[in-house]
């Protein structure tokens, strides 16, 4: 079901929705356990810790150890969530994710908050711009980046029920509301948000809202832009991509991640197998960002609707020849 108008009212942060989902999961299933590495107030696992102290493991500032402890808990049959800032849990815990979870096929649920550059003031050491690339390189992992609170809450629940491993990416900043409370989500199933046959924009996370702004702006000029929320980056909804390639002939991918190794490359790989088409990419270009307000940083590093719209216009021009 597509729409043409999105209000994009500011909602809460996806990390807050993660925290709420965890508490509900804790109530529904006594097998759910949570590990955190001295960031429970920031990741929002603190709510779970308060209600289920005996099922919460505060691992100290020791992310690699935390990941392997989570794998141990999961091996013993627990539904084990491990959480920290995305950059720390993935970069510091990567070898452990590989060898104690992915390789032996132990299903671990990894939630990295404060992803992307929209954390703002803390700067690059706490920003995560390579997490999608890393997580996608773990065989068997599902990789999910929800765009708003409603989709986050639902997808965290689905992730807990999934038999395999999952990486979920959450943001620090408040995210615009895209979905109504009753909307349903399925891991691996992309969501077409707007209809249009001139161009497709595929986005995940915070950039879904920016893509919608572009779609509305170009729509006012009579250009039909199809926006797809690719909340699941792996496994990829290749049918939705092939259909968009066939029907619109041009795909722009927008993401708060390095263009290297992000969703863009994965979509490109997919269309080369199905229906090669014109493509372009909005993302972070071969650099680390810097400190600043989230708005200023997103603006400087080219991740706002203005940048998506400009890239869309360039792609449309190429399509017209």
């Amino acid at each position, binding site marked *: 079901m597509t729409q043409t108008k999105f209000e994009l009212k500011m909602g809460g942060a996806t990390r807050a929705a993660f925290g709420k989902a965890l508490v509900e999961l804790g109530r529904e299933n006594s097998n759910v356990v949570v590990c955190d590495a001295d*960031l429970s107030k920031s990741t929002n696992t603190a709510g779970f810790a308060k209600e289920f102290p005996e099922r919460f493991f505060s691992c*100290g500032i020791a992310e*690699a150890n935390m990941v392997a402890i989570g794998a141990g808990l999961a091996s013993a049959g627990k539904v084990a969530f491990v959480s920290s800032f995305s950059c720390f849990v993935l*970069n510091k815990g990567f070898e452990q994710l590989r060898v104690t979870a992915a390789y032996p096929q132990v299903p671990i649920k990894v939630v990295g908050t404060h992803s992307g550059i929209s954390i703002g*003031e803390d*700067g690059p050491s706490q920003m995560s711009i390579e997490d999608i690339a890393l997580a996608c390189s773990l065989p068997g992992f599902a990789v999910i980046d929800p765009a708003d609170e409603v989709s986050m809450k639902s997808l965290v629940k689905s992730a807990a029920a999934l038999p395999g491993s999952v990486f979920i990416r959450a943001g620090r900043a408040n995210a615009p509301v895209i979905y109504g409370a009753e909307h349903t989500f399925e891991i691996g199933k992309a969501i077409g948000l707007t209809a249009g046959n001139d161009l497709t924009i595929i986005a995940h996370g915070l950039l879904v809202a920016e893509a919608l702004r572009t779609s509305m702006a170009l729509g006012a000029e009579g250009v039909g832009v199809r926006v797809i929320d690719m909340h699941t980056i792996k496994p990829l909804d290749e049918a939705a991509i092939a259909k968009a390639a066939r029907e619109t002939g041009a795909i722009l991918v927008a993401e708060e991640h390095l263009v290297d190794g992000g969703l863009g490359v994965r979509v490109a790989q997919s269309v080369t197998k199905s229906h090669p088409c014109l493509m372009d990419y909005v993302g972070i270009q071969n650099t680390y960002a*810097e400190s600043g*307000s989230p708005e200023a940083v997103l603006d400087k590093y080219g991740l706002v609707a203005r940048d998506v719209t400009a890239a869309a216009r360039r792609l449309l021009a190429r399509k017209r020849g």
Partner: protein
Amino acid sequence: MATLTQPQSAEQLAAVCKTIRRHIINMVGAAKSGHPGGSLSAVELLVSLYFGGQLKHDPKNPEWKDRDRFILSKGHACPVLYAVMAEAGYCPVDKLNTLRQLGSIYQGHPDRRFLPSLEASTGSLGQGLSVALGMGFAARLDKSPSRAYVVLGDGEIQEGQIWEAAMFGAYHKLDNVCAIVDYNKIQLDGWVKDIMGLEPLGDKWRAFGWHVVEFDGHDLAKVDAAFNEARNTKGKPTCLLAHTVKGKGVSFMENNPKWHGVAPNADEIAAALKELA
């Protein structure tokens, strides 16, 4: 203020500490975010290094090959480092209040791309000791008198890499490296003892082969003596366990985990500055 890199009298050093604390409050206040608690706890440690004659450095020649190296491994406490470096003459005092703004040399965590006189870009905890040991090894190879100092957080040393580095430093007898633990007993989520206690901490470092000195990290004379002891200890690296108070100098911030990563509002800034007048 003139640059103060020569050894100072006790009164002068105490006055510098107050100045640095005021900068920290003003910077974090202006930025409306940042980490006051762990910046305030490390003031005497950095002032003794940069102004008390402990660190051999020259703000006019930051690339001097034989300079001592300083790394703030707990990079979130960068307000104290920026304030000290600015007062020492490395960078402008009047820009301190641009902390955390887009393009500022005073980034949210130490970033060498913006401030090249920093010895390391830090912010991801657990890595500074290893880098300091690498610097110490390079000095040994170059027959340089250069020493490396690294300030670690007590929460930070929960990272496994710290203990890999500790083993390395003792095994290689890197006595030109000095680790300083800002032992303020508080980390992000709360008290260290309630998250993952470290005691007996001195015994841990000793078991790893380090010379250990424990002292009150806010007593400038004791801090000075500890750095002297570290320099005079040969054949093994030294770990200074500086017992400190998170938020030191601002009564309502002291020993309160809340002030790890929260900026004071206008009223709180005024109250803090009054205490630091």
